């Protein structure tokens, strides 16, 4: 039995289709990443799987329980962490944890130890008497994770848990997730950070309510058409602008100080790109062929999607 399974899961808000015929399955004990830009439908998916939002169409099961009809059974087995901070800012760290422990019916016996363990593991012990409203962004997220973890869930649904969190806290956060994974918990996490997606067992790329690809990170990378030429230069922006008008390529986009050119014939493209750059008086630090990152895959797939959507519009 899969930990999570959906078939044609759909949610519409008036004219907007937030999630469109999503079919996905998450195996027990794996960490599955739902990746996509803002507005892709990640949060809506998370909410439906947590049984707090009713699907318009399609069906879904969490640990075998129907998310439409068996809400109580689903909620008993999951830990959901909303994207927005959802705890009480006028209660202390401990009060928030105790409150959620009571809601989940965590036995008083052994609770103390469980809380201590969570506090130690997240380095939150010194702050347990602090009001939640006075915590930093990263600590707030960790507190929310602790409240969700207090009842040892079977499936965790984490909606962009590291959004707006500093890099150190993000590393802490992933350390906690990996430990849960080793305990057999299934984790379904959404993120807009592609480097986080690479840490997942499997990922699903989501765009405008639809799942456009799914598989292991390396499988997804293979889905990409062509190879990538990375041109590193302080003038990346101008180079990208120039190449877009002069160079034949699948896609051209900027990642920081480098321009990624996707092409079917890497040798030929790098030579002509070098020529165009030097002829226009610009200079590149390096031009080389690289392995695709998930970011590249994502950008190129979105490009293809847009191109095909454009073609459909013209017809």
């Amino acid at each position, binding site marked *: 039995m899969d930990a999570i399974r959906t078939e044609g899961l759909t949610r519409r808000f008036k004219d907007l289709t937030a999630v469109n015929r999503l079919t996905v399955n998450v195996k027990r004990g794996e960490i599955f990443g739902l990746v996509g830009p803002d507005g892709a439908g990640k949060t809506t998916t998370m909410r439906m799987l947590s049984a707090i*939002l*009713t699907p318009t169409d399609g069906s879904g099961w969490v640990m075998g329980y129907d998310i439409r009809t068996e*809400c109580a059974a689903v*909620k008993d087995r*999951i830990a959901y962490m909303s994207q927005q901070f959802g705890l009480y800012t006028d209660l202390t760290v401990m009060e928030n944890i105790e*409150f959620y422990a*009571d809601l989940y*019916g965590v036995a008083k016996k052994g609770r103390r130890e469980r809380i201590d363990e969570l506090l130690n593991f997240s380095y939150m012990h010194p702050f347990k008497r602090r009001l939640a409203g006075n915590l930093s962004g990263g600590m707030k997220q960790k507190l929310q994770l602790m409240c969700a973890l207090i009842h*040892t869930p079977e499936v965790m649904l984490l909606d962009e848990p590291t959004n707006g969190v500093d890099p150190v806290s993000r590393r802490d956060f992933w350390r906690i997730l990996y430990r849960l994974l080793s305990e057999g918990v299934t984790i379904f996490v959404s993120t807009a950070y592609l480097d986080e997606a690479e840490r997942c067992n499997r990922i699903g790329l989501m765009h405008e309510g639809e799942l456009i690809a799914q598989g292991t990170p390396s499988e997804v990378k293979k889905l990409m058409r062509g190879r990538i030429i990375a041109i590193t230069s302080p003038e990346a922006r101008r180079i990208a602008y120039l190449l877009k008008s002069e160079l034949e390529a699948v896609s051209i986009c900027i990642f920081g100080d480098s321009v990624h050119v996707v092409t079917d014939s890497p040798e030929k493209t790098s030579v002509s790109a070098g020529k165009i750059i030097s002829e226009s008086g610009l200079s590149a630090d390096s031009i080389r062929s690289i392995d695709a990152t998930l970011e590249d895959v994502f950008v190129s797939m979105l490009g293809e999607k847009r191109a095909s959507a454009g073609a459909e519009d013209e017809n």
Partner: protein
Amino acid sequence: MRDSREKASTSGLSARRVFAIARKEFTHVLRDWRSLTLALAIPVMLILLFGYALNLDVKNVPTIVYDASGTPESRDFVRLFGGSTYFTFVDRCDNHRDIARAIDRGRAMVAIVIPTDFAECVNAGRKAEIQVIVDGSDANTGRLVTGYVSAVGLIYYRNLVVKRAEQAGGGAVSMPVSVEHRAWYNPELRSTNNIIPGIIAIVMMVIAAILTSTTVAKEWELGTMEQLISTPVRVQELVVGKLTPFFVIGFLDVTVAVAMGQWIFGVPLRGNAALLFLMAAVFLIGALSTGFMISAMLKTQVLATQIALLSTYLPTLLLSGFVFAIENMPQAIRAITYFVPARYFIAIMRGIYMKGIGLDVMWFNALLLSLWALFMFALANRKLRLKLD
């Protein structure tokens, strides 16, 4: 790794969850001075305000006298007014212009004009006409004062008849018919006795509804609801858990109100105090549920508070029989008052306070009040949805 822990939610409602929610709500109130003020200081203020300001008694009415007769007879007559606590002489004058000026400036509310031929008429057994001018801009006081003046006139007349008869036939004579009125339950006709039970109802209804009107809306606004409903918490647990602290606060308010009635306003409690508190508890449940329901439906704090205030304060003040007697209302309005729950509560409170009667007499009011409370509680449960859609 999966333990055989019992899943609490599959075995129905959990007292522990109710308790956890109640404790959390208590903490919210205790850490927010605004809600604490609203819960405890405002009721006391309202009772003081209503208790002192809404005094419908008329005493020490400023009176001016124009005695054109200036005879022992007319002085006797004027003395009768001076002897009553209802009138206080502020001035005497000898023309109508001064009267007009005194009433215009609000120095006097009543003017008594005794005609020049007063003594002659009285002694001759003819009809003597006294003119009484009342400031009618305050209709209620004006009406009461007119009544008082007539009463004083009657007393004078009676005294006169008795004196004459004694002079004529010797021996004591009594009036053939005499009307002695006695106000039951409130012998001094003090309006405070009537008002305090009503104020308790108003304060409870309004404070209770406002207190709970933010409790659900706040969680939606702050985004804590999304996290909360992802847990196995049940609707009934959330309703009972959230209402409990406010019930305790409301009950505290009732106790304070009753104590203030007893010791500050000197309103005697004739009936059964236990019954009073029981009925207050029923009324509180209804009022708290009303606010909760509004909060669950509207999902925004400001709107919920305003609707709660409007929908409880005005009907309770105007249509409950607190200020205006229901019997004097037009038929259509009277029909509406049956939907104002405070009507039943105020009737019960007055019954207990002033008449000392119990459920054997007031069972129907008590029944309707309980039905309303039950209905609102059920509605609060029904309107709270644990879904985002």
